[in-house]
């Protein structure tokens, strides 16, 4: 916080009229020490007035939460005693509050708390109501208190903004504090044109929106908004909405470039994008066209050097992650949950994130790869091996928390398996040097790896000579059963084609929520019905939040569905259909329709109505294991 209050504020109430306690006269002639001791006077602690606004004293014990990130805020606080930490992203500490500092001030402006305040040491604090502040003083002109609050807010918000922009992730707290000190805030209004100049400054939009001014070359509809970085501006920008622009000067930019790798790459990408705007023929003297700031040759040189340094090809998508998030993920992963905190921190430090789409080859058998070690964060991959006849067969799959790409790094041999993604996946990527450090110097990491590899080798040897198991594995991977959690299954040897399952579904829900066609394995058939995927592709596409996963794992469609059909389009199994569901205000209402496994009922209509017990709901892994032993009998 920018402004701290100390005892001296109370000694000269006429000059620095910060506090107006009822007995202010008694404080007037006190020395600094005496005034300090009076702050803790029992009378003062009951209630305190700050510019005519009453603050209520609250006591909070260690570990309590004062307010939470994202909740609606209606008050701000002044800490009197103890200490408080402000956290974002569930545990990342951004600030520790000392006595006589304000916190929670963002709620005055944004009506929401942007951080979570947790009591670190038994605290006493004054709670001020925002409504009192806005009602009692001239809000716009700004009284002294508002100024202090505003300053505290600006600084707080700046820091939070920087924490959330990816290039700044990884910069230490001290350095970030330093950076925020030197930021210049440039407010702008709608329609106002701001000339950004030719210096090497860097601009970040912290509020509102900006677009390139109409007369500027390269006005390509780019809209700069919250968190966007503008480096080496070539044109004038016009405000599209009222907002603020932050200016980071040359020195800071240089320093961040030294510290932060992602920042460098982001800047070079920004410059590359800009590269296509060539020098306009006209010179500065030519009136209106001079709006376009020409890159001088001097400026171009360092820019080009920078690009070379941060040359990245495949890693365009790679970004640094929040270290706390990685640690959390690792402690939940079945493979790495037992490694020490130090190892987790080390991984968090050196890991980068990479994303791959469905059906992409990540590692090819018979090559050394790119010297990278992958940990799957979210998604699944299949392992394909060549058998003795030279055919490629799927021998298994890996999912969240598992790893691959270790063979060339540990044993210095070629990769024996091809790894192909079967869903969209997110992975942590560790380069060869960091991996060797981890493997050689952190025994618990090595142990975790070796244990898992042993487990895997055992699994392979079991499956490799068992043709039936292999064919089931292939079937499961090819048909996306590896990430299904609730599967409808027909056993065709029992089914008598009476369609009572479909009739029962229609009777209960009005429409049939599944179709009796789908892939078959031996006498088992899987109809087109929701499989409740582990990583569903349907949910993320909805703009209306009308499709979501409930606490019990079921994916349901809400009544606010507008029937656009995006979820149906992205469901790989044809499990969602758009149907007409009555009319609303004279318009036909369309809605997505899918099997919700008779949520809210005690049984599934299709299952309980089947006269022969041919239809079942099963967890695919368990079912196919059972199937395997049954067949072997």
């Amino acid at each position: 916080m920018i402004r701290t209050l100390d005892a001296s504020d109370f000694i000269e109430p006429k000059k620095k009229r910060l506090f107006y306690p009822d007995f202010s006269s008694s404080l007037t002639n006190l020395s600094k020490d005496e005034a300090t001791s009076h702050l803790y006077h029992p009378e003062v602690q009951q209630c305190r007035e700050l510019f005519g606004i009453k603050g209520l004293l609250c006591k909070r014990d260690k570990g309590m939460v004062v307010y939470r990130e994202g909740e609606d805020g209606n008050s701000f606080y002044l800490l009197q005693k103890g200490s408080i930490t402000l956290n974002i992203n569930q545990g990342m500490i951004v600030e520790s509050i000392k006595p006589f500092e304000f916190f929670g001030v963002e709620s005055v402006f944004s009506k929401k708390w942007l951080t979570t305040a947790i009591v670190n040491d038994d605290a006493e604090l004054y709670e001020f109501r925002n409504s009192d502040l806005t009602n009692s003083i001239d809000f716009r002109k700004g009284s002294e208190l508002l100024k202090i609050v505003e300053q505290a807010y600006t600084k707080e918000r700046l820091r939070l903004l920087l924490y959330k922009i990816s290039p700044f992730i990884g910069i230490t707290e001290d350095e970030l504090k330093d950076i925020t000190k030197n930021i210049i805030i440039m407010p702008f209004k709608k329609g106002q044109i701001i000339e950004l100049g030719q210096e090497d400054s860097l601009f970040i939009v912290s509020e509102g929106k900006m677009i390139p001014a109409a007369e500027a070359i390269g006005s390509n509809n780019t809209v700069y908004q919250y968190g966007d970085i503008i480096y080496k501006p070539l044109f004038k920008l016009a405000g599209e909405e009222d907002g603020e622009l932050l200016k980071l000067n040359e020195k800071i930019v240089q320093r961040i470039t030294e510290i932060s790798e992602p920042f460098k790459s982001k800047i070079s990408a920004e410059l590359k994008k800009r590269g296509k705007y060539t020098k306009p023929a006209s010179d500065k003297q030519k009136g209106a066209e001079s709006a376009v700031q020409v890159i001088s040759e001097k400026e171009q040189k360092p820019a080009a050097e920078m690009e070379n340094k941060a040359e990245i090809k495949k890693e365009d998508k790679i970004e640094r992650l929040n270290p706390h998030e990685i640690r959390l993920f690792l402690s939940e992963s079945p493979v790495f949950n037992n490694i020490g905190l130090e190892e987790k921190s080390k991984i968090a430090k050196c890991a980068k994130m990479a994303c791959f789409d469905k059906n992409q080859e990540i590692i090819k058998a018979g090559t050394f790869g790119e010297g990278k070690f992958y940990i799957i964060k979210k998604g699944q991959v299949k392992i394909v091996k060549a058998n003795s006849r030279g055919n490629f067969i799927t021998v298994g799959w890996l999912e969240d928390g598992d790893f691959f790409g270790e063979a060339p790094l540990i044993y210095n041999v070629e990769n024996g398996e091809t790894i192909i993604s079967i869903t969209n996946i997110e992975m942590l990527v560790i380069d060869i040097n960091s991996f060797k450090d981890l493997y050689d110097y952190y025994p618990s990491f090595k142990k975790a790896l070796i244990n898992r590899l042993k487990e895997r080798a055992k699994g392979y040897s079991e499956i490799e000579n068992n043709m039936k198991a292999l064919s089931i594995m292939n079937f499961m991977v090819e048909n996306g059963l590896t990430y299904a959690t609730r599967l409808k299954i027909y056993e065709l040897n029992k089914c008598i084609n009476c369609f009572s399952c479909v009739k029962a579904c229609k009777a209960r829900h009005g429409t049939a929520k599944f179709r009796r066609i789908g892939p078959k394995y031996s006498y088992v058939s899987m109809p087109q019905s929701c499989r409740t995927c582990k990583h569903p592709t349907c949910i993320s596409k909805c703009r209306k939040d009308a499709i979501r996963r409930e606490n019990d794992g079921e994916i349901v469609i809400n009544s606010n569905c507008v029937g656009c059909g995006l979820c149906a389009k992205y469901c790989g199994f044809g499990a969602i259909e758009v149907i007409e569901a009555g009319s609303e205000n004279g318009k036909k209402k369309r809605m997505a329709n899918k099997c919700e496994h008779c949520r809210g009922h005690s049984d599934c209509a299709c299952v309980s109505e089947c006269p022969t017990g041919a239809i079942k709901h099963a967890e695919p892994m368990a079912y196919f294991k059972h199937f395997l032993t049954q067949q072997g009998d």
Partner: protein
Amino acid sequence: MGTKFKINLDACTGCGACEDTCPEVFKMVDEKSTVNNETVAKNIAAATEAMNSCPDNAIVSV
């Protein structure tokens, strides 16, 4: 058929289906669809498909 499109903002529910089908022409701004008519000529097939796929028939060709 004309080569320009218009959005009936009252009918548009902001589902984003058009942007998904033809991102070159349609863009969602503040929960409503907007048209960039300059790029229609190049992407006429996708844009027409987006028009037909709109669940609220909010896209009209003019």
